[in-house]
């Protein structure tokens, strides 16, 4: 488990899909690094959290996998977004925004009227 902050399964999937959309096909290490960097190291992903999430996305058909050479000429398993994954990302992002807006509406103007 990540010490700094627990990653919820659903949000982790969203982060992975987001990462793959921005960076294109990527291996597990790259995904982990990117998520940690993007979170400014507030999130720490261990393998036991990351890889089941990746497998789940693969089982759902959101990503495909392929063994390839990495930029450093290492063999690594690359994850790539599928059309279904793109759709899923769009839908979840929309839902997430909607939820965030809703919660924000409750939290921001704390004492508006007396």
């Amino acid at each position, binding site marked *: 488990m990540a010490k700094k902050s627990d990653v919820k399964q659903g949000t982790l999937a969203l982060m992975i899909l987001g990462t793959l959309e921005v960076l294109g096909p990527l291996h597990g290490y790259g995904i982990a*690094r990117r998520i940690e960097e993007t979170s400014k190291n507030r999130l720490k992903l261990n*393998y036991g959290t990351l890889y089941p999430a990746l497998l*789940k996305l693969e089982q759902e*058909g959101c990503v495909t996998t392929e063994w390839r050479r990495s930029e450093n000429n290492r*063999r690594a398993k690359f994850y790539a977004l599928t059309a279904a994954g793109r759709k899923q990302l769009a839908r979840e992002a929309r839902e997430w925004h909607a939820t965030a807006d809703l919660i924000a509406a409750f939290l921001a103007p704390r004492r508006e009227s007396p």
Partner: protein
Amino acid sequence: MRRVRALLARIAGIFTRHRADDDLRDELQAHLDMEIAENIRRGMDPVAARRQALLASGGLTQAVEAVRDQRGLPWIEHVAADVRYALRALRRSPAFTTVVVITLALGIGANTAIFSVVHGVLLKPLPHQGGDRLVYLRHSADGPGGENVLFSVPEVRDLRGGAPSLAGIAEYCPWTVTYQANEGAVRIDVGLVTGNFFEIMGLSPLLGRLTRPSDDGPGVPPVMVLTHEYWTKRFGGDSGVVGTQLLLDGSSVTVIGILQPAPFFPNRMDALLNMVISPHHLSALMVEGRTHRMTEVVARLAPGAGVEQAETEVAAVHARMQSDFTEAYDPGSHYRVAVIPFKEALGERARLTLWLLMGAAAFVMIISAASVANLTLMRGVRREHELVVRAALGAGVRRLRRLLLVENLLLAFLGAVLGVVIAVGGVGLLTSLAERYSPRASEIRLDAIVLGFTVALAGSVALLLSFLASLPKEGGFASWILAGAHRLTARLGRHRLQRGLVVVQVAVSVVLLAGAGLLTRTMMRLADVSTGLRTEEVLTLQVSILTPTQLLSDPGADAWAKERYDRMRDEVAALPGVVDVGLGSPTPLRSSFVQLDVKAEGGVLAAGEATPRAELRTANPDFFRAAGIPILEGRPFATTDQWDAGMVVILNQTLADRLFPGEDPLGKRVAWTGDVLRFTPISGEWRTVVGVAGNTQDGGLDAEPRPVMFMPFAQMLAIGGGLVIRADSNVAGLKTAVTRVVRRIAPAAPIENVMTVAQIKDQSVAPRRLNAALIASFGGLAVVIAAVGIAGVLAFSVSARTGEIGIRMSLGADRGRVQRMILREGGGLLAVGLVLGVAGSLLGAGLIRGLLFGVAPHDPATFIGVAVLMAAIGIVACWIPAHRAARIDPAITMRSQ
């Protein structure tokens, strides 16, 4: 969609485990390598870089586990592993497994078989469309033969007009006709029905059509619908029979259809015909005669109407009938009509017997479950070591509990499978039993509901067993492990449970044995009942030369038939070995369908006293001698008692006592009486009593003898006929020769019930014998299981106390004392079980009063016998482990401690 896809991927994942694991390890390794490389690039030394990367990974093994859980369906995989483990464990203890599976199979098999009968005969919805809305109307009166007097056509008409809660009334007249088949004449049981019968009953044809209103009335062609049962039995289910013509009572009758399988009440039917076959049923006598009761009535309740409402309305109609037609309802006989759901009516004869069997089977289940529970508990103690080890290796209590459950489910499942095999064998036997009591026996089968019952039974046993095992609370294993105990035996609570189970087994066995004892005594008493005939070396057969229709319509037929009966008598008498031949109808030990009111000359009924009723039987002069029925007073009939001589009768003892209490009946005059005589060829003239005959058990061995009035065979129309043949030895061997003679003289007449008196008697005892045998075998089973249970628990107790016994012996206790100690332990359990069992049987015995004959439900001899038997078996069961205990060698025991 996404979920489905994921699920399919996970199911596939179960099977591609090994390849995927390698792949995953490579992937994780690559990740780790990249991380190490990155750390080195940032300036760490290789060792620190590796350490740091491993720390960040959170553990490779854990990651593999987590991915595996995501990959397949961990739940299924765990269960599969549990099943594999349980199979291994069971294979390691084959004796335990065998005993448990067999014990469970016996219990489950007995219950499955009997439940299939209870379900088929009593519980299953009727095959009739809307069968739960059908009600049977029973018209009854006090006195012998009054249980079901049927309805007359005018009565049905009144009911139809006066009870709006009955939406439709279906009538059928039970009737027998002679079917001239290719291989000879047979009598078949038919129902004469009106055109709306099938519609109201909610029955459909399997083939062809059923009767309809256009088949009613005179002047239509006779048609018949075969019942499914008869069609299968007689025509082998050949659809070609539809449209053909059969010769019934001399007329050609077209088979128009085959009825769906359906039960009839009170008796089976071979076919249903329209009324035209019997002119009598269409005659004014029948249609207008209020006391001419020949019709069974089943009605369909109107929507929203209940049985009680229908009963109230029917009672009102009936009360009106009684006040309008006082001559038709003798007030002393208390005529009444009951409205009974048709399903209940169909099950009424079987109900008590079947619930008794179901109860007995349930008891066997209790005993076998208790026995298996004990075995499991004992095995559990021996396995504590194993459980502790597994707990130490990280299995949680829930996991262990699941493991035990899987093991028990497996045992119960094996038991259920074997039990169903046993049940398949038992159902055949039980069906032949049920056929004697229920028209629905053909509906008995091991269907989905019965198997569901079996599965539920096996599942509950498995659950029960799993929760008997005492595991510590979550986390409580630490103390077990710390204690280092490899035997946490003889914890008092568990021991108490085992003893309780033994007491239950003994008590339930006693109850079953008591039931078996009472039923066996019933059967023996019944077999001891005298038939009223002096010998059993008598062969009887019935042969009906004339059908009722012929008899009623053709004036010359009677003389023609009697001439043939006389020839049969003469020719049979000439057969070698035959001593006496009598003619009469019905033959002895068969009940008569003709029951009429009788009166004695000068006799006056007390106010409210029912008119006496008697069975009409005919006999020729040799009948009593041939049958061995004693003439107690006066004389038998003489050859001179003909139509033209004075009318004479012989009363049986019951009727003589009823009509002439304390008087000499000889020479007194009696007569048939009642409105119903108008519809019969029997006259109400005075007849002189010339003799009194002994009673015979015509209604069955367990029935009260009925009042009977014999008329000379020559002074009554030949409404039926029978031969009573006495031989000097081996009367059964005469069957073929006699049948040949009869067949030659009356080739068109059906020959029925060719049986010796011994066979008839046996037929009367047979159902009871089967009952007694079934319950006794349950009882025997129970006792064996219980005895093994006692011996097992004591043996276990001895082995748990080996150390203690060793100490006692080394301190000076001799072998006898040790043996007595163990015997005392077992004897205590036995005594408590016996007391509870006897008390329970005494409470429960009243419930089976209706199945007993000649034995009181609290018969002391039976109860003492059962208690002694159980005690003797129990003591033997205790003695074996006690003997073993006494042979314990203290030196060896002390050393091994």
